[in-house]
């Protein structure tokens, strides 16, 4: 472990520090509860529906959205890492060690992506007994992992931007809750967006990267013959562009973070 690259070492430290039981309840427990409660309650009232020629039960539809939502929750963990390190002095302490700011940022993003992937794996284990239909193909796996990585980077960058801008604990938590609420519910993570969706909400959901993360994950969990019928490659491109832009904005803001918050 001593010869690990600096960002990997920082990521490992971040995971060790931020995976206490209370944090795990938020990062993993919340999506798991959504999966269990929504999956159980709605599956009995929502009949199976077809997207791109593939017939989804609600449980099968939901798992894609929940895995995507896990990348949002992992992203909040990433923002909290920076915020807590600033608040409790570890940010300046770590920067007085042989690490650069970029390596610190790399450590936060790596930890976020790792948490997102590990959390998703745990959620899949919960979803299968609930009747979610999961097909794994090489292309599908790339799509699932790729979408979760991009989602993790986007939402981590978004939360890092907030963490870099906000000094107050209450403000940070409030903003985080609002972001989670809007991002998760104004998207197709929990229900399909169609022409009957009010136009303003439809526009927001088409701008919302979670929609594309959910579509990428969902497409990866169906038989490969249905893959491109469910996921338009342009969606992946939009997600990629949004992620790059958000990352650059976050990086620029983060680069100006003062050493001491207090």
């Amino acid at each position, binding site marked *: 472990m001593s010869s690990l690259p600096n960002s990997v070492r920082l990521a490992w430290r971040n995971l060790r520090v931020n995976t206490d039981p209370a944090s795990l309840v938020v990062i993993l427990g919340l999506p798991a509860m959504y999966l269990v409660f929504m999956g159980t309650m709605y599956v009995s009232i929502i009949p199976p529906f077809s997207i791109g020629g593939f017939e989804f039960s609600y449980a099968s539809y939901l798992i894609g959205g929940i895995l995507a939502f896990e990348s949002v929750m992992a992203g909040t963990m990433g923002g909290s890492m920076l915020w807590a390190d600033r608040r409790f002095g570890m940010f300046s302490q770590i920067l*007085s060690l042989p690490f650069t700011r970029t390596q610190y940022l790399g450590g936060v993003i790596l930890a976020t992506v790792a948490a997102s992937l590990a959390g998703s794996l745990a959620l899949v284990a919960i979803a299968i007994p609930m009747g979610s239909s999961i097909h794994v193909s090489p292309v599908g796996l790339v799509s699932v992992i790729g979408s979760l990585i991009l989602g993790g980077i986007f939402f981590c960058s978004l939360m890092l931007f907030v963490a870099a801008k906000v000094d107050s604990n209450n403000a940070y938590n409030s903003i985080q809750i609002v972001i989670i609420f809007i991002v998760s519910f104004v998207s197709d993570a929990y229900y399909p967006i169609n022409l009957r969706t009010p136009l303003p909400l439809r526009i927001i959901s088409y701008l919302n990267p979670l929609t594309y993360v959910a579509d990428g994950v969902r497409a990866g969990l169906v038989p490969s013959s249905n893959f491109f019928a469910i996921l338009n490659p342009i969606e992946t491109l939009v997600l990629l562009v949004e992620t790059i832009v958000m990352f650059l904005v976050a990086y620029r803001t983060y680069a100006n973070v003062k050493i001491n918050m207090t």
Partner: protein
Amino acid sequence: MQIADGKETYSKGGEDSNAQSFAISIENLSHSYDGKKYVISDVSFNVNRGEIFGLLGPNGAGKTTTIKILTTLIQPSKGNVKILGFDLRKDGMKIRRRIGVVQQDSSFDFATVRQNLDLYGFLWGIPKEERTKRSIELIKMFGLEEVANQRAFDLSGGQQRRLQVAREFIHDMDLLFLDEPTVGLDPLMRRRILDLLKEKARKEGLTILFTTHNLEEADYLCDRVAIMDKGRLQALDTVERLKRIYGGTKAIEVILASSVLNSEIPIYDNFFRKLREVQVDVEVSKQPTDSEPAVIVSKHPEKVIEAIISVANEQRVKIEWLNVRKSTLEDVFIEAVAPSGSSEEVSSQGNAKESTTIAKSSTQGGGGTSANS
């Protein structure tokens, strides 16, 4: 260094050409956070390898900013700095590999004492077996056995400070920066940490730069001290030389009869006014309190004592305590940072009780100190 017009200038002859031999070499360092007001102005000094160097000064003197610059956390606005021979502006990573930093603000991971030490060692790339061994040693050395499995955030202030200092010794280093490391520590633990630092410097050649408000510990620990005030260096030398230079003066402690403290007549004020009339070479460096004597510093204590007795007789004031003592670092400190203006200026800063200048000019011309002894 010479003293001219109450300000010090530093002779740089030859020392900059060999900056590599110094642990720290600072030349004309200035820093401003907003581009307007300079919190550090034109500071130059060197720290020898293996030396314990104290940076003293009142709040807002620029000590912490200096430490932040020297530890590469912020880039200086102006000046040249070399740390262990490396250029601060170009070689930040190389510098950080060889230094340790105990910052003024507390900093911990949300983990137990043992885990904090382990995580820190992990960040430094120390193999698991080695960091476990060092953690055990440090927990014992810093008296943290009883709280080793408690979360760092649940510890008392003193315990947290101990952990913060202990944590820095989990890795090897050539130069250690400590920003007020003993704040909140009880006297025994303070002494234990100071002794540890001394031992590390003497036996392992560790260079230490630390800031403190506690002048006794600077006196106990430091080979040399620099006194900063308002971003400028006011004095720099060995503690003993500073005491000798500034203390061509001696401190005369006097307590007038306790009853007069409760009197409505400002008896000390009258007393000092009379003293000034007969003896100009005095400075009241500390006003009396219920428990502490007034302190008068003078180059000619025998004349002051004569004057005190004479004035006391004349004023019919009873002297309860009269003592002449050697100059302390505190006297040097007060002398070095005392405003050169009037006592009103001191008063406006809320320090009037601690430093009232009567005849500062007469006590400051007594010689110079060298930037590197």
